[in-house]
């Protein structure tokens, strides 16, 4: 027997401590996930109504010039906003997204692509590797006020309206289930004019607009965009918590397996010690008896 009983017991103790931490982290992630999901649900009516409103107004706005609907003249280049988490210990959540974003960036211009990173993990990764990170923000937290979104949204639209990029894409993580999250890359700006398909129901409702539709749309779109950003951030946050929950749940059960294995070898070691002592006693007694 190679392992000493004391070593094995020490190892069991340390694995048990790790297990306590991972199972606590799992519980925290589960509570946070629930909170984020509540926020997502609470925010849905606004997002839905906002979309309806944009769809209702835009057919009447005509060929209105709107800085969010078309790339500024002479603008070129690409900007990608990468939304990652602030912390690790959430399985491959950050890595999956970073890999997806990096592949896309490398194909579409590499170092020339302007990056806006949200979340410490992505910020560190891309700035260390010499990518062109033009701006970075921390990812919002579970209890962050809505106001934090404004600065991020402003930065994303700013790159576009200042003509520094002809297109803005967002890499975020879609929340499918607690067990499954998919990294996604979507075009964010210019906005594809919503509801412009055929203008079929234009006569359905005769709206009174105040101010006129074009101006109304000008006021609406920034809010629409901001809400989109909010959605991306929240969904990524939910994915992160889901990923962490799964990762910590796996870690907890692996720790359990390890403890079982270690207990087995601890017991073996203990039994072997007893057997050895017995042998010594018995052979000692026999030696005396045979004299």
């Amino acid at each position, binding site marked *: 027997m190679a392992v000493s009983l004391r070593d094995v017991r020490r190892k069991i103790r340390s694995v048990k401590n790790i297990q306590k931490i991972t199972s606590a982290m799992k519980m925290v992630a589960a509570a946070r996930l629930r909170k984020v999901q509540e*926020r997502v649900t*609470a*925010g849905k*009516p*606004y*997002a839905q*109504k*906002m979309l309806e*409103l944009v769809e*209702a*107004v835009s057919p009447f706005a005509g060929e209105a010039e709107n800085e969010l609907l078309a790339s500024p003249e002479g603008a070129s280049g690409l900007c990608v906003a990468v939304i990652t988490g602030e912390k690790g210990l959430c399985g491959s959540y950050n890595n999956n997204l970073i890999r997806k974003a990096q592949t896309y960036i490398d194909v579409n211009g590499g170092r020339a692509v302007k990056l806006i990173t949200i979340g410490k993990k992505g910020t560190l990764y891309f700035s260390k590797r010499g990518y062109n990170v033009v701006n970075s923000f921390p990812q919002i937290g579970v209890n962050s006020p*809505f106001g934090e979104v404004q600065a991020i949204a402003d930065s994303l639209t700013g790159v576009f309206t200042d003509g520094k990029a002809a297109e803005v894409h967002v890499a975020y993580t879609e929340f499918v289930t607690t067990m499954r999250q998919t990294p996604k890359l979507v075009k964010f700006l210019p906005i594809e004019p919503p509801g412009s398909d055929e203008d079929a129901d234009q006569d359905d*409702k*005769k*709206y*009174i*607009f*105040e*101010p006129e539709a074009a*101006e*109304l749309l000008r*006021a*609406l779109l920034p*809010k629409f965009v*901001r*809400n989109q950003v*909010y959605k991306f951030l929240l969904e990524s946050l939910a994915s992160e918590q889901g990923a962490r929950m799964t990762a910590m749940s796996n870690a907890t059960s692996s720790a359990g397996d390890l403890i079982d294995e270690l207990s087995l070898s601890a017991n073996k070691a203990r039994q072997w010690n007893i057997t050895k002592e017995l042998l010594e006693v018995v052979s000692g007694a026999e030696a005396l008896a045979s004299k």
Partner: protein
Amino acid sequence: MAEAVFHIEVVTPEKVVYSSEATSVVAPGNLGSFGVLAHHLPMVVQLGVGKLEIRETGGREVLMALQGGFFEVSENRVIVLADTAERADEIDVERAKRALERAQNALSDLDNHSIDRERARAALARAEARYQVASDGRNH
């Protein structure tokens, strides 16, 4: 005769603040306040900063401080998409008053060029709306 009612919802990016049946509503349009009764024609209005007054079916009046947003009427439903909306009873009158005084002081100091007057004016309008709603709400 039964009162003509319509449904009204006040929604912010974070939650549905209010949802009820009402007989009339007065909202702070960007180009001036306006009132809406039941069966209004479909309409979309941009809102400014100010006071939203809803008269519920029971005659009770609900006051809210709004900070910008949009107002949509269609099919006898009113939807107020506000950036923020605070019910009168959620606003701390004393705090609102202090904020209002701060905003007034900041603006009245003409020699101070360090402040952004545009922003200060907007802050003043917000503070005014909140204070008004809070103090009106108290007297109801």
